[in-house]
């Protein structure tokens, strides 16, 4: 009834942990979940002290899967557990970073795994209420999640005194309404409170003052989904799946010019070359890889040559001055028009800029106008320089990282593929009237 998101069989190189139930019949159902070690991690956690749970998560080396890669156990330890205020759990299911489509798989195929992760997080900070914020476009996933939550209530895995452990937890979904910025954690919290998705001044961070100004654990869907296996397997065993300093597996979305697109579960540190050739079946049409975005469109772009030698992990990407990001890998073959790509990316950030701060609000629009002209062949060399300059002027100066997310791909594309911008110069002439029309259509 829902479109399938999986290849029939996993790739043999995949390291299946989070996805272990994905291909089971009725994988969404609580019975399937319970029959396959479901909720065992929570039962274990229920016997542990909060410190022990957090230590286990720390030991797993789990880093946030939403894009920033912050160590999860450390984040949880920031929650002031003695605070008299209630504590909350908020799940970031806004998944809007272009190239990213993994949380969708996690919810569509195994919603109970997410619920269990939330329960464990709740136990670790004495939280008894949570919300799963899911982007509005994912309405069917909200329905799936609602059904799973109802099942969990009906079977005593949510609500009062869960399975006799004495632990209470209330959980519900909360729909977004179309705004990439609401994936940014503080803007998400504003949105949850019924406001415009404008980020908050930080500090205080959500761990101290989050949802409804109470201490809050806020993580990505995949981050929470990883937690049950960590509790079940033990943090160290989970860490050993990956590489030192970055534990476990990562759902990776192969997109763009690759033969076998799809969402794959790969151990952290998996080589890019193998990912493209073995998992992805090579670049479409036997072409050469011109460029790769490693983790969602906000990451600085890599040339094909640069990418080829790297591994899919935080440090390897950092060394190449880019980021592992959200796991959305975008592959571009030798025929890709990089000016068009840059324009499409900036159009996205311009559309999604919340408008709160000057450099992002005005900068993204200006860049869009410049790139539109450059793409149309009515730009000048000065315009190319200006693109780089403006991106520099935005970087690190905006109120939230969306401005950086717009600046980083733009400056990296224009610097690494400058010849393509130059090649387009003066190729076409457009009247001012035509130009303004063009700009207003893209507006």
């Amino acid at each position, binding site marked *: 009834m829902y479109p399938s998101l999986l290849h029939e069989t996993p790739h043999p190189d995949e390291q299946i942990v989070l996805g272990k139930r994905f291909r089971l019949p009725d994988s969404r159902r609580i019975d399937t979940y319970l029959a396959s070690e479901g909720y065992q991690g929570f039962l274990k956690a229920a016997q542990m002290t909060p410190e022990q749970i957090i230590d286990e998560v720390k030991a797993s080396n789990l880093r946030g899967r939403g894009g920033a890669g912050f160590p999860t156990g450390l984040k949880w330890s920031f929650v002031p557990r003695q605070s008299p205020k209630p504590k909350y759990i908020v799940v970031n299911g806004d998944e809007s970073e272009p*190239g990213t489509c993994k949380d969708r798989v996690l919810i569509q195929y195994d919603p109970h795994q997410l619920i269990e992760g939330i329960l464990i997080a709740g136990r670790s900070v004495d939280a008894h209420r949570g919300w799963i914020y899911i982007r509005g*476009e994912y309405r069917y996933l909200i329905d799936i999640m609602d059904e799973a939550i109802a099942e969990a209530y009906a079977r005593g895995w949510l609500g009062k005194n869960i399975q006799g452990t004495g632990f209470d937890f209330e959980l519900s979904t909360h729909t977004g309404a179309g705004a990439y910025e609401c994936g940014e954690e503080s803007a998400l919290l504003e949105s949850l*409170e019924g406001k415009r998705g404008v980020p908050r001044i930080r500090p205080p961070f959500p761990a101290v003052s989050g949802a409804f100004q109470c201490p809050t654990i806020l993580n990505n869907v995949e981050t929470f989904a990883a937690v049950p296996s960590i509790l079940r397997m033990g943090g160290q065993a989970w860490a050993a799946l990956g590489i030192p300093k970055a534990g476990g597996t990562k759902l990776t979305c192969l997109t763009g010019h690759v033969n076998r*697109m799809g969402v794959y579960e790969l151990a952290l540190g998996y080589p890019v070359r193998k990912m493209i050739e073995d998992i992805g079946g090579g670049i479409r049409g036997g072409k050469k890889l011109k460029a790769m975005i490693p983790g969602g469109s906000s990451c600085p772009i890599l040339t094909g040559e640069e990418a080829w030698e790297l591994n899919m992990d935080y440090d390897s990407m950092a060394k190449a001055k880019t980021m592992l990001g959200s796991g959305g890998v975008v592959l571009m073959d030798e025929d890709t028009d990089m000016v068009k790509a840059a324009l499409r990316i900036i159009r996205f950030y311009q559309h999604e800029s*919340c408008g709160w701060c000057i450099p992002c609000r005005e900068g993204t629009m200006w860049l869009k106008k410049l790139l539109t002209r450059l793409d149309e062949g009515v730009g000048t060399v000065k315009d190319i320089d200006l693109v780089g300059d403006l991106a520099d002027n935005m970087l690190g100066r905006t109120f939230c990282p969306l401005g950086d997310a717009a600046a980083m791909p733009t400056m990296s594309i224009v610097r690494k593929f400058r010849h393509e911008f130059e090649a387009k110069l003066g190729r076409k002439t457009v009247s001012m009237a035509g130009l303004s029309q063009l700009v207003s259509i893209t507006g």
Partner: protein
Amino acid sequence: MTFSPELEKRFAEMAAKYPEGRQKACLIPMLMYAQDEVGHMTEELKEEVAKRLNISVLEVNEVVGYYTMMRKKRMGKTHLQICTNISCLLWDGDQLWERACQKLGIGHNEVTADGKISLEEVECIGACSWAPAIQVNYDFQHHVTPEQLDKLIDDLRNA
């Protein structure tokens, strides 16, 4: 203003999901689920929601103006959303978009004269690994070919 019994039930349950006194949190879900019934953010709907949550219409307008999915005007019976963002672009999503515009004779956020179909060029909808992707109301369609798009539009027109 009255809604369907199912929606009223949803609203009634919703209030209990947020801390006491923070019921403004219901605003976005209420508007979104109500939009499914009402079609778009009518003045009446905004006023009704403001009244139920005991907030000002200004607070509702602030929010409605912000979110892309909150429709400022009436859309078609079927709302066709075509992704042209980077991963779909690489699979010619932009051409699907232009094809749809041409075939329907309408552009971004416009509705056909018969009110059956509206079009929207959307940002990434989280279907990048199944590009090019479109959404027909809330339903996803993956790996969409030009032929499939044509057939879909024809079917909708004749429906």
